[in-house]
């Protein structure tokens, strides 16, 4: 059953097209990721879904409610964590949380179980003004405030941007737990490696969705052959590989260079070519693509 349905939503700011006929649906209890860099249209989409912004065209409904006609209903069942910290800086942790609980006609006590795991970490500082908190604590408070009315749908706009690798892992563990409680989650991120933690993802770029699928299927549908290559001179290796085959995609990926091509690559020919160009310790192996490889390849097809 589709819990969230988005049909051909478009939005422009002046001449700039932020969203182009975007459509997708999210099932009840699904953890859905919207993956893309700044400018992809993620925030615009989320603001439209949370009824904070009007689309130019298209329609959407959330839990059966229309984003135009039933906006008041939607605001009651959606928890939203914006990308920019938007709580009251001069209220304390506890005051912020109490404020959001009261607005939604509930109390901290009533839904404490839901936020307990996160709130317990910031509770020792509950008398501190929100403006004086570290980035990680602000993030936890914002999530607590988005959850305090026990929403059916949680919409999180880049909750892990600027957050270190350890805290990011912990944050995703939390999301998994909310999913298990039956909350439907739509979350955006610019970190491609987080895609694999979602049930399904939409890969977005410049207002367009390039692909929607499970992370496993996206990787499976990566058509080109992918080689991971290393040598003694990585910087020159990048240059030489780009010169080798014009139809290839060549990018640095950590310790290796990923070399993809639609054509069949003869590994020993490639090895000889690199050796003839002065490279030593050449290592070539076939590799499994990451979501980032897929994203790069899709960007190439779309441009």
């Amino acid at each position, binding site marked *: 059953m589709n819990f969230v349905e988005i049909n051909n939503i478009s939005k422009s700011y002046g001449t700039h097209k932020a969203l182009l006929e975007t459509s997708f649906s999210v099932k009840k209890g699904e953890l859905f990721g919207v993956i893309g860099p700044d400018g992809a249209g993620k925030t615009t989409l989320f603001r439209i879904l949370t009824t904070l912004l009007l689309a130019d065209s298209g329609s959407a409904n959330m839990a059966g409610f229309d984003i135009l006609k039933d906006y008041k209903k939607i605001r009651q069942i959606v928890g939203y964590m914006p990308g920019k910290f938007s709580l009251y800086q001069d209220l304390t942790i506890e005051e912020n949380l109490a404020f959001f609980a009261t607005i939604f006609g509930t109390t901290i006590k009533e839904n404490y179980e839901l936020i307990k795991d996160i709130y317990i970490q910031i509770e020792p500082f509950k008398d501190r003004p929100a403006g004086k908190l570290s980035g990680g604590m602000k993030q936890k408070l914002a999530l607590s405030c988005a959850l305090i009315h026990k929403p059916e749908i949680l919409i999180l706009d880049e909750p892990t941007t*600027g957050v*270190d690798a*350890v805290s990011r892992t912990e944050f995703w563990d939390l999301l998994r737990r909310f999913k298990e409680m039956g909350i439907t989650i739509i979350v955006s991120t*610019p*970190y491609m490696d987080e895609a694999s933690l979602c049930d399904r993802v939409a890969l977005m770029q410049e207002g367009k969705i390039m692909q929607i699928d499970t992370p496993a299927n996206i990787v499976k549908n990566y058509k080109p052959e992918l080689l991971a290559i290393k040598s003694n001179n990585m910087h020159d290796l990048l240059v030489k590989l780009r010169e080798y085959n014009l139809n290839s995609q060549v990018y640095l990926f950590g310790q290796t260079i990923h070399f993809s091509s639609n054509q069949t690559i003869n590994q020993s020919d490639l090895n000889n070519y690199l050796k003839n160009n002065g490279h030593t310790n050449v290592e070539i192996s076939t590799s499994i693509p990451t979501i980032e490889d897929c994203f790069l390849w899709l*960007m190439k097809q779309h441009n």
Partner: protein
Amino acid sequence: MEKEKAITVKNLVKKFGSFVANDNLTFDVYKGEIFGFLGANGAGKTTALKILCGLSSPTSGEINVAGFDVYSETNKIKNNIGYMSQKFSLYEDLTVYENIRFYGGIYGLKLKDIRKRADELIQKLGLTNVRNELLSSIPLGWKQKLAFSVAIFHHPKIVFLDEPTGGVDPVTRREFWDMIYDAAGEGITIMVTTHYMDEAEYCNRVCIMVDGRIEAIGTPSELIKNQNAENMNDVFLQLARKAKQQ
């Protein structure tokens, strides 16, 4: 032969009241090196960076940046370094050209030189068509490349990059690293912070900070070997998690 040092840090301590933000840091950064400065949020990276840029005074320690002392020669340090942060230092309501001219002026370059170099830079970055457009109207990736170019416009000895690639698409992120390599090739020393662990692999050496201390320092391959890890992401998770459990 001893490698020439761009930064030397010996027993750097910085306290805020009773809180120790930097706990006895000692490390060197060599000339022309790409030095990655990693750590969890709150590990003390920004505190140390501010001290190295001459914006904040250490509590104790001997620190020398580009040949100058951080206690007595902060103005000379500022003339010899460049700085770029994720919340870039460019002005949204100035045009591309005006931003370059502004920074050139701040660093005391002659207007004639600024004009010539600005033209070269605009052409190199492919920004000719948007030369006179307000910065607010150009895409993030272009801004980030421009911000980096502006940070090294006055040919500093060292450039500090604080999460320079946050939020940009994967292609632009890699193009940005090409620019970092080019700058290092010209002899500029690069000190960079990032949350993308694949980028840690692109550094010549990295230093991982945990709770105000240096937990590990070395080339990425050394650290991966020492920690018996697959990649830098594993190294980082192992070291940073250890801290949280204490």
